[in-house]
């Protein structure tokens, strides 16, 4: 298959490129001119990888077409993975990369010669404000979300959904919280669950404090979930899914683990993994604790996710790809802890 991929230099993109290349696909990477040298170094061992100078925040996306016409005209699938991920991102940047970037990619894909597939990687966070069961088709473009990242991803997804696609089939993937490799534990930056890991890592050293603490308090809402997914699993899943033809014009999937991990369980297991001998006890549900979070190194933007009891349905995934199962959190946690060690030094 001829695949065009954006966001290849990112955390997910690197693994996805490797996974796709391993399956023998011919991949065109849309790379910003400034990252080109780095990308060429990263993927130098891979055969069948082509580099196309492009910038999704530009109106016409591709900067230099020379030498890439062939791959552009014979593309079987576009995977739009690029986007800025950071909960504390300023609106201007999030808007440019996520909203305008997606809009330009849609425009670009619509101009390709009878493109069969457009794969868009969204995020589970577009529905993170919901409570209870969240269907894979559920979206409300008018919702106001807590952070610019989720908000712009939501807008981007609704743009993808509303665009006139013609013969192109569209798939929207909404991965959960991406954590490090389940085999090696490798992780790029401190983010999401890793804020907690950093805290526990510190607590391990403050023995005198932890001895005096009666318990470790959890704030947030009873039943809040963290849909964790290791990055290599995501890359594998995406590779499998991209390869399989679709029967639907537009289909969306929640890429989350079949295990509905509660925040409590996540904290309990992680404390154990960091050998901090503390019980986990839920605090009364109040947002008064939120200002305390930054004091222990957890950014304010994480707080809303602790209040979301949304449980993300996997109906479409189970229906179309019954074999996609993620490893259990407790199984890969030791690897994550190992991989995270490097980040805190």
């Amino acid at each position: 298959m001829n695949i065009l991929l954006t966001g290849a230099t990112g955390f997910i993109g690197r693994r996805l490129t490797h996974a796709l290349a391993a399956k023998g696909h011919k991949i065109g990477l849309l790379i910003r001119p400034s990252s080109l040298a780095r990308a060429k170094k990263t993927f130098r061992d891979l055969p069948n990888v082509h580099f196309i100078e492009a910038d999704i925040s530009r109106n016409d996306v591709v900067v230099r077409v020379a030498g890439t016409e062939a791959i552009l005209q014979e593309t079987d699938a576009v995977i739009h993975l690029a986007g800025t991920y950071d909960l504390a991102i300023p609106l201007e940047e999030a808007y440019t990369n996520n909203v305008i970037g997606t809009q330009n990619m849609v425009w670009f894909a619509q101009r390709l010669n009878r493109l069969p597939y457009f794969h868009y990687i969204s995020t589970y966070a577009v529905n993170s404000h919901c409570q209870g069961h969240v269907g894979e088709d559920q979206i409300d473009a008018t919702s106001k979300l807590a952070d610019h990242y989720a908000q712009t991803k939501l807008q981007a997804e609704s743009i993808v959904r509303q665009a006139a696609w013609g013969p192109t089939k569209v798939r929207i993937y909404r991965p959960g919280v991406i954590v490090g490799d389940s085999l090696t534990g490798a992780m790029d930056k401190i983010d999401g669950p890793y804020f907690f890991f950093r805290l526990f890592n510190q607590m391990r050293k403050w023995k005198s404090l932890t001895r005096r603490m009666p318990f470790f308090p959890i704030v947030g809402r009873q039943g809040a979930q963290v849909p964790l997914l290791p990055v290599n699993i995501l890359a594998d899943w995406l590779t499998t899914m991209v390869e399989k033809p679709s029967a639907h014009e537009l289909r969306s999937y929640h890429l989350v683990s079949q295990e509905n991990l509660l925040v409590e369980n996540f904290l309990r297991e992680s404390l154990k993994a960091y050998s901090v001998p503390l019980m986990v006890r839920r605090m009364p549900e109040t947002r008064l604790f939120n200002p305390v979070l930054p004091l222990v190194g957890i950014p304010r933007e994480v707080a809303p996710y602790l209040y979301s009891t949304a449980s993300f349905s996997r109906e479409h995934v189970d229906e179309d790809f019954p074999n996609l199962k993620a490893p259990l959190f407790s199984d890969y946690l030791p690897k994550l802890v190992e991989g995270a060690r490097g980040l805190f030094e």
Partner: protein
Amino acid sequence: MKEIIKVAYGPSSENYDAKFSFKGEDYRLKRLGVDANVDLALHLLKNFRHECDAFAVAGFPPILKIGRETIIHPVYKQLREAAGTTPVADGTLLRKTSFLWALKSLLKREPLLLSQKKIGFFCGIFQADFLHFFEEHTSDLVFADLYFSLGIPKLMHSSRQLTKAMGRLTPALMKVSVGKKFTKDYDALIFRTPLMREFHRCDVYIIHKTQLDYVKLWPLEGKTVIVDSLDRFTKEKLVAAGAGRIISCFPEFPAHPEIGCAALEALFLAHQPDKVLDEETLLQEVRSLEAHPTIIETETKSKTAQFAFVIHPLTQKQLFLVPGMKNFSNLPIARGIEKMMGKVPGFYYCKMNGIKSEFNGQEVEGELYVLPATPKQLLRQDPESIYRRIHQLCLLAHSRGTNIIGLGAYTKIVGDAGVTIANRSPIPVTTGNSLSAAATLWAASYGLERMDLVKKGADGRYQGTAMVIGATGSIGKVCVRHLCHQWEKVILVAPRPYKVLDLVDEMKGHCPNTEIIGSTHPDKYTPDCDLIITSTSAQGEKVMDIAKVKPGAVICDVSRPFDLGLDDVSTRPDVLVIASGEVELPGQVKIGKTLNLEGGAVYACLAETALLAMEGRFENFSLSRELDYDKVIEIDQLARKHGIRLSAIMGHTGEITDQEIALCREHALKVRLT
């Protein structure tokens, strides 16, 4: 390919990319919504100013002309500065040239579009250039500018008032930050402010496209809405809000209807070699497009129809059921209070909702009004004073938005039975007698069927005798006409002999095969009768001796208060006494306060009012004492169509079950044997 970037104040989820050709050139129009964030808009203009040929900015404050002053909002200047040398179009010029032209050409087609209409402006100041046009057509303009820009619940009624007020408020408006102020949710406020009510009663609304996102649209339901330009999302929103008619005063760009005012202006601008646009060229461009303003008739969602109904206490006792009145009931002054209350004007009592037609799903909502006079007082007083009070209730009901009013119980007996009231009332009036009569006949036939003591002959008629007491009354007359077709012998009883004789003659003309006898007193014939319908206004005076009634007879006591006392009824277990006239409305009916009726039953006259509202027939359906037989047949068909049914038939002590009827039949058979 030329690039146009449209930075819109509206939501970014509506972003699109459109490609089209105009005069041989390819254009790409990219819309970027900023969700009311001005800083983001400035950032976008700054970032993309070298990447496009023209900007369109939509929804940001335009240059306003208030009176002689020209007002430029700081945001307007900031946007121009951010765009640098790239030309910026905001649609003002295009709107100015095309809006009135479009409206005028619409008026040629439909001259009555604006005349005598109440026109509501969400933000009239944006239409300041066109106000003179509207003022030529109607004098009834309502401006909600103060409310939607500053949250002050004050309406203005002329362009002069508007320019004066807005002129004074300009310095304050300049300081209002555009981003936040407009996103405020005004919905709750609107509900709470009675001062804004007039605004909700407008027939035509004029709204700026951008406001659609930040204002709750429920006043638009079923109304005509004029927008300056109409794209896909605007249309969806207006249709969702239930707007009855959507008029777009904008030359629609045929190939791409989603292109709005600002974008089209930007397109013209990008097309000009020197990137300058004046009215003259714009006009030519618009003409070259051969564009037309559009009217979209939407399928109006069936709006809840409203009816009003007047009730009054039927007995002195009911008068004292009112909380607070309870303590007076045992005092010797009770009669005095009754008299006093007889002079009190009527008032709003409670709401009825959940009525829903089974035929077309039309939902109907009712309002009940009380005239706190007992029957005695109503009949004793000068009709004129009662007309006056009922007329007041009609006015009240009209101002509360109801479309028809029904007169309950004795209010329809007073004077000329509704005719005077209907003449004075702003909304149609009905007495509900047609359905009352129909319901009585339903109940009678149900009772007879269950008792199963009268045989039907070969011609389908009952081989027995039926009697109507109060035969010359409005309900009585229809019963007579109906019974004459169905019975072999019918006896008509009424207190005035000349009326009875007249009616007998009339009926003989209709049904020559039926034996029809007139009488002024029933007791002579009661022993032979199988069915007796009493419909009098005897007010509890004894009209017949129940002891003489034939065993197994069915009596329908339609009169309120009853002609037969509870004591009378209990002496004859072998006679089925039906207190008919109550029916059931379709749907989950909820009544705010009790009507002293069992279960879901309501008065048939109330049901008629509701039925007319369901059918959308807002007319004086039944009026005066003369009840039209054809109307009874018609309302009978309508009632069956919309699912109004006889509620479980009612006796004097409540519901009559089928077992009770069976028991009654056994008694009757026993008595007949002995």
